[in-house]
Each structure stands twice: as structure tokens, then as C-alpha cells.
């Protein structure tokens, strides 16, 4: 099967700092691909460069067989390459329904219509409500997004990103700041995603990573340190060194990996 996302020598530099250094990466359709690495490994920068939020300094981003390196972020999103943000990024002064409807109406090509009130576009409204229902937020459609809890905002974000009709979704640390119960609900939600959806996920909670991912890539100092199935990554010595050598807070990796 041909890959849905390919990075060829992707590089991002800020002045003299190279945050992402000639990264090659291949993601196949339907894959659950996790990107992990210690703080400062360049995960967020890589995400931003793939989504088009940041320009790449060098290298190519291929999506669905097409070179999208030169395309701005909205054009990549229109082709089905969408991202979420590390901190919930919602439309807080709009209703919960509006948040999802914004994603739906763009796809329905009615986002620029002003000849009728929005509620008269019933197919858009119904589809938005369906997406809300899928994440368990249908009951709160009329409330302002600002009224949602942290965990609920994450759920709304998932509904929003799925409503864009994506081919590949990139989640940037989706469980950051969640309680254990919220994390559990989120993992269930991810497990229920359609099988044909490709997911690229940056995640600090390695327990979550090893439960969800079918393929793990480890980034260290802007380079790919290792890439493969979870079992192989757990056993990889270079990976463990990178984690142990960088920060005490990453000790959790040892627990999750049950090192020999």
C-alpha cells in the first residue's frame, strides 16, 4: 500500500538552531503512528511543518502522493491533512455546535453563504450534531465552548477535526493536562475512530502511546532515533539512553516499557 504521508529530509531551522534535522518518515494509510521523544526533540516543530503552520527550511512533505511542501496550511487542510493543537484551540465565544459546524460547512461549500440563516442549512447542522454525538457532547450543543471543562474541550476538538473529513489527523499531545479518568475516556474515543483514518500522534504519556500506536517513531534532537513497532522501540537501547540522559521526568518510560 502506498504511504499517505512521506517526509523526505524535512528540516526546520530558527536562526542557528536546527529544530528538525533531515527527518525522513513514512506513514501508511490507516496506521496509528506515534511520535515520541524527550522535551525539545522537535516534535511540535515537525508537526507544525507538516501541517503547514510553519514553513519548512528544507526537504519535502508528500501527502497522498502529492508534494504539498509549497502549499499553505488551509490548502493542506482542504486535502485532508489536519492537525490539533497542544492546548485546546477552540472558538470559545461560539456555541459548541458552531465549533463543529464551522468544520462541516466548509466541506459542504456553504461557508460563504449569507442568503439564509445558518439554521436553515439543515444538512450542515445535522452532520455537526452527529459528530458531537459521537464524542458525547450532543447534549451541550447550545452552550458556549468556553463553558466546557478541559476534558470536554478535548472531546470537542476531536469532533471538530473529524468533521473536516480528514485523511490524516495529527494530534499534538491530546492527553496533556487530563485527569486519569479523562485520559481513559480519550483513549476509548481514539479506539473508536474509523479504521481507515490515519492518525499521527505526539504524546508524552507512554502508556497511552503503547496502547494506541501500531508504529512508533522516536525523535531526539531533531533527528529520527528509531522507528518501528512498539515492542522493538521498547527494547531499543539508544532510545532508552536518550530518555534517561535527558530528563528525570521521563523516568515514566521505564515503567511503561518494563525494561528487562
Amino acid at each position, binding site marked *: 500500500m502506498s504511504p499517505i504521508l512521506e517526509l523526505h529530509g524535512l528540516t526546520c531551522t*530558527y*536562526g542557528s*538552531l536546527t*529544530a528538525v534535522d533531515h527527518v525522513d518518515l513514512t506513514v501508511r494509510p490507516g496506521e496509528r503512528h506515534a511520535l515520541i521523544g524527550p522535551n525539545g526533540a522537535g516534535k*511540535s*516543530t515537525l508537526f507544525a511543518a507538516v501541517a503547514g503552520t510553519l514553513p519548512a527550511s528544507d526537504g519535502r512533505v508528500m501527502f497522498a502522493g502529492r508534494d504539498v511542501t509549497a502549499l499553505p496550511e488551509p490548502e493542506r487542510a482542504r486535502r485532508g491533512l489536519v492537525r490539533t493543537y497542544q492546548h485546546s484551540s477552540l472558538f470559545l465565544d461560539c456555541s459548541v455546535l458552531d465549533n463543529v459546524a464551522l468544520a462541516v460547512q466548509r466541506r459542504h461549500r456553504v461557508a460563504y453563504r449569507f442568503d439564509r440563516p445558518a439554521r436553515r442549512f439543515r444538512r450542515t447542522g445535522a452532520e455537526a450534531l452527529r459528530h458531537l454525538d459521537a464524542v458525547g457532547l450532543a447534549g451541550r450543543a447550545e452552550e458556549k465552548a468556553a463553558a466546557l471543562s478541559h476534558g470536554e474541550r478535548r472531546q470537542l476538538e476531536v469532533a471538530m477535526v473529524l468533521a473536516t473529513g480528514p485523511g490524516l489527523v495529527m494530534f499534538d499531545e491530546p492527553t496533556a493536562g487530563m485527569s486519569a479518568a479523562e485520559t481513559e475516556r480519550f483513549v476509548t474515543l481514539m479506539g473508536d475512530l474509523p479504521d481507515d483514518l490515519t492518525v499521527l500522534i505526539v504524546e508524552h504519556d507512554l502508556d497511552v502511546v503503547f496502547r494506541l500506536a501500531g508504529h512508533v517513531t522516536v525523535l531526539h534532537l531533531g533527528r529520527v532515533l528509531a522507528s518501528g513497532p512498539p515492542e522493538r522501540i521498547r527494547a531499543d537501547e539508544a532510545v532508552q539512553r536518550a530518555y534517561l540522559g535527558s530528563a528525570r521526568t521521563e523516568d515514566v518510560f521505564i515503567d511503561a516499557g518494563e525494561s528487562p
Partner: protein
Amino acid sequence: MGTYLVGALNGLAMGSLLFAIALGLSLVFGMMDVLNLAHGAVYLLGAYVAVALLPDGVGLGVFVLAVLAAAAAGAVLGGALAAMTRAIPHHLDQALLTLGVALVVAELLSLVFGNDVHSIAAPAAVGGGVAVFGGTYPVYRLLVIGFGIVLAVAVYLLVERSRLGTVIRATVADRAMVAALGVNTGRVLAGVFAAGAALAAVGGVLAGPILGAQPGLDEKVLLLALVVVVIGGLGSIRGALLGALLIGQVQALGTTLLPQYASFLIFAAMALVLLLRPAGLLPPRTAVRA
């Protein structure tokens, strides 16, 4: 040929004044994202200080006194603006506040000085002309050009060579980081706000013998200063200098060649720069934004 060279000199004088005025506007915006819409009113305050203190044919000493008085008045107003804007969280509300202050100050000035057009004489000692390019050119305008040069050098030394300047540049680049390093940004910001306003008021006095003083002048000057800042790059000192020199020339040449379209030329210059260099000609060096 002589006409054009005289025009160019006029443009240089105008550029010097615009640099003095736009500098504060640009720094205040670059350092704290405050758009000070009262900047034109501060300028007008300076011009009316000149009206009040400078009857015809005064000596240089009195003129310098007027400059100092205007600087003090401008600094006080700038300090007050800094204090008021700090009390408000949103940038739009801050701009609206300065807009309110601009209306109040302009109205108070017209209450005191009336709505007439006041002209201000240059100090007697420099009121004459010198022979330049086969014509005579006012000595006073040459002095204004000299002032512009001195100001540019002084600002360069202050900003590039002093510790205070380092703080100012760093604050433009990344305010949160400077605050995190333990620098009292509040005091620096208030100081820059006051100093910028003082310079604008001084600009009002210096421009007095050229532009006079009248209601509505504050808006024209605010517009010119805004265009200078946009063209040069928000928060950039070198940009303000370049923008001021450019707009000075455009203004002077426009008035010589196409008086009806001078304001259109200025807008066209701004549109052109924004089209080619959206961040301005010399944007400030910013920190890495991840």
C-alpha cells in the same frame, strides 16, 4: 533643477521631524502593542506650547526653553497614558482609550487657543536664509535637519550601545522573556512611553515655524507618523528613520509636483511597501517564535 533640490532639502527637514514624532509611536507599539492614537494630540500640545511661549522674534534661549517645556508637558502626558493603558487588559480597549484622550486633549487645546490658524516665527537669530543652489534657503530648516541627524545618532548610541538600549531591543523582541529575566519592564515601558511623547511634543515645537498650529493638524501628523511606522516596520528604530526620510521626500516632492495628490502619493507609497514587504522595510529583529 534648483527647485527639486530645494524640495529635497524640505523633504529632509520634514523627514527629521517625522523621525522625532514617529519614533515614540513605533517603540510604544513594538514594546507593548499599544497603538497610541493620542500621539498626534501630544504633537499638537507641543505646537501650542510654542504658540504660547514664542512671540515673534524671540531669542534662541527662549526657543530652547519652549522646547524643554514642551518635552516636559509631553513626558507628563505620555506617563499618564502609560499608566492608564497599563490598567486595561485588551489592546483594542487601550487604543480606544488613547483615542478618547486624543479627543479630549485636542478639544481642550481648541478651548484655550481657539480654532484659528496660528503661525509661529523662527527664532530671530536663525530667521534668515542662506544661499543654497542659487537661491536662498531658510537657516531654520537646515537647523531642523541638523537636529534630525543629532537625534538619529543619539538614538543609535542609546539603543545599540547602552544597557537600557539592550533592554528596549529585547523587549521589542520578546517581552515575556525580558520580564522573566527579572527586568522591571513596567518602568522601562513607562519611560519609553514618556520619552516618545516628549519627542513628539518637541517635534511640535520644532515644526511650529514650518507647519504652524491649528485644530486638525494632530490627525494629519498622526497619519504621517502611522504611515512612517508601517512603512519602516512596527517597533523598528532604523525602520522609523528610513520611513521618515522616505515619507519626507514623498511629501515634499508631492507638494512641489502634484499638490492635489500629495496625500494620495503617501497612501500609494504605503500600499506599495505593504504589497512588496508586508512586515515593513526594516522590521525589528525578533526572537525565535516556536
